[in-house]
């Protein structure tokens, strides 16, 4: 039972709300005999699903929603994740019966509206990347990365070239090296120079005839546009290698600079970042990939094509790397991103301009209280360091993040990129009003002050959330990853 006066009501597990014989749903039961199943295939013991009534079920999820913080709740400057407002009209459009109830095996002639939407989305994405051919199939950014690397492998195999190494910078997202391994490539790392650009000397020494390509985020995870990108592209192309653009930070440059014009051959987009598919507590996402004409024959099958006024799925792709996901991709995500792009039109450039303006404003107002490792104007995000607070008051980036929660703000990304100690990676996005940005500045400055005057307040934060800091070591050392019913350990007041 919730104690009187508690700010956060108790949140029992669904299994603890369960009572034998209670139920919510009553599926239709046709008036037909139920055939016997062979004994060896028949379920012996019923799964212990919760037994709850609908009122309790609705309360349960409402309680859990109350204990979750989203963009709808407040400012969420989680760097590299582009936590922008998600227009609500998208949910209405994705739920239109013509989309929501459309079976993916429906004949092409009875799915023309869906296919046209996908074809138009491909065209708009191609224009934004400056590359002609698009696959919508990959389910998320990291699958887009893996798809890109498979495309490189197919491209070089087709040319009879043996190349086994992919180069990534030390600032790369963890997904880049992980994708390299999954694609069966070796990894080579490149350093970042003092201005936050790729170190060209390091690069020239490492790019050779074994190099398949580069994976680069531009602007980088430091929020800085690589000023030497033209020379970088030249070095790789001169060696016969390809350039892969990780679109995680595309929100900075839509309508300003196109990856294809920067020299990239393969690009993935994150529809859940730049094009406003809601992040859903972890997903879904969308990770379309665009390529140059020379790589187009290898794109996953099927693609969406137009013959005159008719749209169809093209499965006849003999050089394709194959399929990377079921069907033609996460269609509901396409509806949302298509609507988002149609609402902006060519004005998408302003989206990126405001994202960059908002980030630079925060940077300008915070760089006198937190360390700024690369003192330049930023793009859509920037990285501060709490090393000054750590050195002087013993207050870490983690402490700052936890204390921000007490100000009603979701923390930025912390301890990333790895090249910055005590990193705080801040991405405000274009949708925030100035008042929310000012609230954040005030909170960050207040925390820096608190670090000096009352560091224990910061060390022990958060103070106003449903739980305090967690014992994460215990969670990893004695993993309890499902409810264990009668054998479940009693944790309250444990140890």
């Amino acid at each position, binding site marked *: 039972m919730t104690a009187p006066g508690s700010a956060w009501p108790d949140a029992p597990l669904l*299994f603890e709300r369960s009572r034998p014989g209670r139920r*919510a749903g*009553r*599926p239709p039961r046709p008036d037909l005999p139920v055939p016997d*199943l*062979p004994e060896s*295939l028949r*379920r012996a013991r019923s799964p212990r699903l919760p037994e*709850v009534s609908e009122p309790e*079920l609705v309360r349960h999820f409402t309680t*859990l929603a109350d*204990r*979750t913080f989203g963009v709808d709740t407040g400012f*969420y400057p*989680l760097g590299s994740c582009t936590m922008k407002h998600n227009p609500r*009209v998208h949910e209405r*459009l994705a739920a*239109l019966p013509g989309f929501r109830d459309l079976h*993916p095996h429906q*004949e092409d002639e009875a799915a023309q*509206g*869906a296919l046209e939407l996908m074809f138009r989305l491909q065209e708009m994405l191609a224009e934004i990347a400056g590359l002609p051919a698009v696959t919508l199939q990959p389910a998320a950014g990291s*699958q887009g990365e*893996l798809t890109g690397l498979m495309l490189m492998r197919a491209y070089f195999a087709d040319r009879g070239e043996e190349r086994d190494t992919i180069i990534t910078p030390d600032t790369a997202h*963890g997904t880049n*090296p*992980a994708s390299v391994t*999954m694609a*069966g490539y070796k990894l080579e790392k490149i350093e970042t120079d003092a201005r936050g650009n790729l170190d060209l000397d390091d690069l020239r020494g490492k790019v050779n005839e074994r190099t398949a390509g580069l994976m680069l985020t531009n602007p980088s995870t430091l929020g800085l546009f690589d*000023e030497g*990108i033209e020379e970088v592209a030249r070095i790789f192309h001169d060696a016969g290698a390809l350039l892969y653009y990780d679109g995680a930070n595309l929100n900075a440059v839509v*309508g*300003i600079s196109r990856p294809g014009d920067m*020299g990239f051959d393969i690009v993935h987009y994150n529809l859940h970042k730049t094009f406003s598919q*809601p992040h*859903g*507590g*972890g*997903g879904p996402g969308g990770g379309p990939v665009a390529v140059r004409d020379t790589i187009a024959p290898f794109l996953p099958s099927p693609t969406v094509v137009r013959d005159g006024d008719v749209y169809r799925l093209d499965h006849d792709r003999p050089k394709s790397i194959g*399929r990377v996901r*079921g069907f033609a*991709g996460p269609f*509901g995500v396409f509806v949302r991103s*298509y609507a988002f792009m149609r609402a*902006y039109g060519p004005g998408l450039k302003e989206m990126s301009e405001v994202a960059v*303006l908002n980030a*630079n404003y925060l940077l*300008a107002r915070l760089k006198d209280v937190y360390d700024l490792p690369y003192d330049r*104007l930023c793009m859509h995000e920037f990285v501060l360091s709490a090393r000054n607070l750590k050195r002087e008051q013993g207050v870490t980036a983690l402490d700052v993040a936890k204390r921000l929660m007490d100000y009603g703000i979701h923390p930025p990304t912390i301890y990333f990129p790895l090249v910055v100690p005590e990193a705080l990676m801040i991405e405000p996005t274009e949708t*925030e009003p*100035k008042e929310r940005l000012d609230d954040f500045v005030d909170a960050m400055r207040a925390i820096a002050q608190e670090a000096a005057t009352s560091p224990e307040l910061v060390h*022990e934060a958060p103070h106003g959330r449903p*739980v305090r800091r967690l014992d994460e070591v215990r*969670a990893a050392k004695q*993993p309890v*990853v*499902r409810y264990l019913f009668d054998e479940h350990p009693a*944790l309250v007041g*444990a*140890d």
Partner: protein
Amino acid sequence: MSSGYLSLTDADREEMLAAIGVSSVDELFEQVPPGVRLDRALDLPPALGETDLVRHVEELASRNVHTGAELSFLGAGIYDHYVPSVADVVLSRGEFLTAYTPYQPEMSQGVLQAIFEYQTVVCELTGMDVSNASGYDGCTVAADACFVVRHAVPGRSKIVLAETVSPQVRQVVKTYAPGFGLEIVEVTHDSGTTDPDRIAEAASDAAAVLFQQPNFLGCLEPAPELAQAAADAGALAIAHVDPMSLGVLEAPGEYGCSIALGEGQAAGNWPSYGGPHYGFLAAKTDFVRRMPGRIVGETIDLDGRRAFVLTLQTREQHIRREKATSNITTNQTLLALAGLATLAWLGPEGLREVGEACLSLTHYARERVPLEPAFEAPSFKEVAFRTPIPAREVVRRAREHGVHPGYALGRDYEGMDDVLLVALTEKRTVEDVDRLAEVLAEVCS
């Protein structure tokens, strides 16, 4: 005209530029070399206000024939089960909709707890010990499982796939396999099901065997015997299962499988022309530290209160980078939570009743439809019929009568141009089956 999704006034902009110390937004972009700047406006269709946008997108939607507009018996991997209104509670709460991966547990106890509950439900359905927080779909989780197996069974680099596994699942596994250094071998079916002896033979030097229950041809496999054949050959058994069947069909964990996975769509997601949906992936305890993707665990906070947190993160890309068990980051949490709400709404009785409705309607269709079943083996919710004319032609003609009769298996299987796969969920009625029988009689005569 500025977009309504943006929030700055002209006065805000002036103040902000002054604080930065630049005179225009253009100055902020001086770090972008002139040679790579776009010197024109994007060539995109003009902006639409919300009213016009809705009209335009509604017009596109109206040109699709959805499952409410014709009587549909399409399945073959995506199924028209009932999605209860409580699933909307999850999907429409802005906190779930607009949060991201719960990296900061104090801000995310609700979504973490819900994922923990989802993991429990998946383990209960499959008879496994650990589930991840979801994969992209029923295809990619099969590829993920191959990556787990690659490292769990040293010295063996072959995966055996039953040909009765969904063609799309097999295609995705084959796309991923070269990067994993895996060789794929397929075992053909005998009259719609897989022969355990053939599995035993093919698996003698394999790391794992993947089969599907019920299989793609609509037949129930001798699943326990297939798992045993794999085990006898020293290979791990992986079952691709339908969550909506697991109220009546045995859990893979009970008949010797090491990993169970599948497409979650049938439990709580709309067909949505193929996505987004969720793939589930669960395994026995031995594989917990090799699992791909997010896993939520239980712990305590400083005051000893129960709390939930992303755990075993040393498996993951943001910690382990090139040594990670997967590159997955964004997953399908929201769809998985709709699945949780749906399965909780059904409860154990409801799930069994859905399974029984599928069994009885399918049995009824087998009797009622005036075509020969293509296979003898028992069915769950799909049954394949031989058609006297090509099945694709049957589909075309039946649709003219307002009935989509099913999936033409010749799209994937050689020699099956005259086989039609009919799916029956609990949303179909006896009268619907009667109507199907009537239309098939007419178009096949």
